[in-house]
């Protein structure tokens, strides 16, 4: 269930992107922490599928569908938005590789059995599957995150960690932007659908509250300024849902636009969720002002969705780049 798009041949349920999206939204409406763990697990499975070869699918995917938890590490102290600054190194040493580096803010790393760690390899980059218990791995939980507080975010130190060479996905160096984009495309879909869930939870809570609480002699929803907030919240939920449905359809039909549609969906849904959650807090006012309330949690969690899997600004840069077609006249390197 945590990585429901993995096929039955590897012990998964083989959902398509649309069905997995609806499942992700349902979980996301109740708990963004659990949804974040799902995002990491699904992204780990997708990374193995994309970057790994068939033997690696057979080795790792059944573990991910049968209870082992996984986290995916891109971010480093010096490499947040700019993943080309990544310093983690995967180095050959006979039948093993040696992994050295630091990762920060890795969702689910506190719970994980397997760490899918991105790093440079043979002049390019790829990911390596590192057992969380391997000698040289140190995992330190991030204290007091703003949101998704139960998602087990942790920093990871890899001090000359040795793993078998066949844990290096694909066994070769790939262009870093392609390797990370391939992996992040799944994560972006998952976060986007999770944001749809956040919006649905906010809409339900706001509708329930404003149709029962009375002020100035009528229920809140009958005050026009309140009604407008409700309309905007509904529009936000629809808007995010449509962007996600479109991106999932691209995924499910193998449209070449699937990667850029995933960026678009993540950008739209996280923006709508952050705005919508703030609107829901406004509508519930003091009723949503204590920390454990579903709308209070949505407010804290949604803001972080504008940060992860490519910040809103990075999404904007990718979308702007997409509008500019490649030409044979400009000279430019492959870039994120």
């Amino acid at each position, binding site marked *: 269930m945590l990585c429901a798009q993995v096929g039955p041949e590897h012990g998964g349920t083989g959902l398509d992107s649309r069905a997995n999206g609806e499942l992700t939204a349902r979980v996301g409406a109740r708990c963004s922490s659990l949804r974040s763990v799902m995002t990491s697990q699904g992204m780990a499975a997708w990374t193995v*599928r*994309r*970057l*790994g*070869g068939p033997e*690696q699918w057979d080795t790792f995917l059944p573990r991910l569908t049968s209870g082992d938890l996984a986290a995916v590490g891109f971010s480093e102290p010096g490499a947040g938005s700019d993943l080309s600054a990544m310093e983690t190194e995967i180095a050959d040493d006979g039948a093993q590789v040696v992994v050295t580096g630091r990762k920060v803010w890795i969702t689910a790393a506190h719970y994980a059995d397997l760490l899918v760690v991105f790093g440079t390899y043979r002049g*390019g980059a790829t990911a390596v599957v590192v057992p969380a218990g391997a000698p040289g791995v140190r995992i330190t939980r991030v204290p007091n995150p703003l949101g998704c507080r139960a998602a087990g975010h942790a920093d990871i130190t890899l001090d000359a960690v040795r793993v078998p060479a066949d844990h290096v*996905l*694909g*066994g*070769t*160096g*790939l*262009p870093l*932007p*392609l*390797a*990370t*984009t*391939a992996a992040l*495309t799944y994560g972006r879909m998952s976060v986007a659908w999770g944001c749809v869930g956040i919006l649905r939870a906010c809409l339900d809570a706001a509708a329930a509250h404003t149709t029962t609480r009375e002020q100035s002699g009528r229920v809140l929803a009958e005050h026009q300024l309140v009604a407008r907030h409700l309309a905007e919240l509904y529009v936000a939920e629809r808007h995010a849902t449509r962007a996600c449905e479109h991106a999932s359809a691209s995924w499910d*039909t*193998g*449209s*070449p*636009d*699937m*990667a*850029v549609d995933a*960026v678009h969906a993540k950008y739209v849904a996280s923006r709508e969720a952050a705005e919508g959650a703030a609107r829901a807090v406004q509508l519930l006012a003091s009723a949503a002002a204590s920390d454990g309330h579903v709308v209070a949690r949505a407010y804290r969690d949604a803001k972080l969705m504008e940060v992860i899997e490519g910040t809103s600004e990075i999404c904007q840069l*990718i979308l702007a*780049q*997409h509008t*500019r*077609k*490649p*030409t*044979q006249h*400009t*000279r*430019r*390197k*492959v*870039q*994120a």
Partner: protein
Amino acid sequence: MTISSKPGSHTAETVAQEVQRFLEQRTKQTWDPDTDLFSSGAVSSMFAMELVVHLESSFDVVISGPDLALDNFRTVNAMTAMVLRLREAQP
């Protein structure tokens, strides 16, 4: 009857034509079969992913692991060679 279980039959010529058609549609220019897309053009990681997914869905192949190496996407000829090799290897 065809030997391959893949739908449609493809030759180097038909694959190359389809790749060129796609590049032209996406970039509004024509590409010689051996022009280096990466050194001569602005190719973003999004565009590289477009190529990967388009080749997969047009020719019913899976491009994963080492096949994602940039050299396989550098020219129309390189993409054609990879597609034919994968269609052979993934019946």
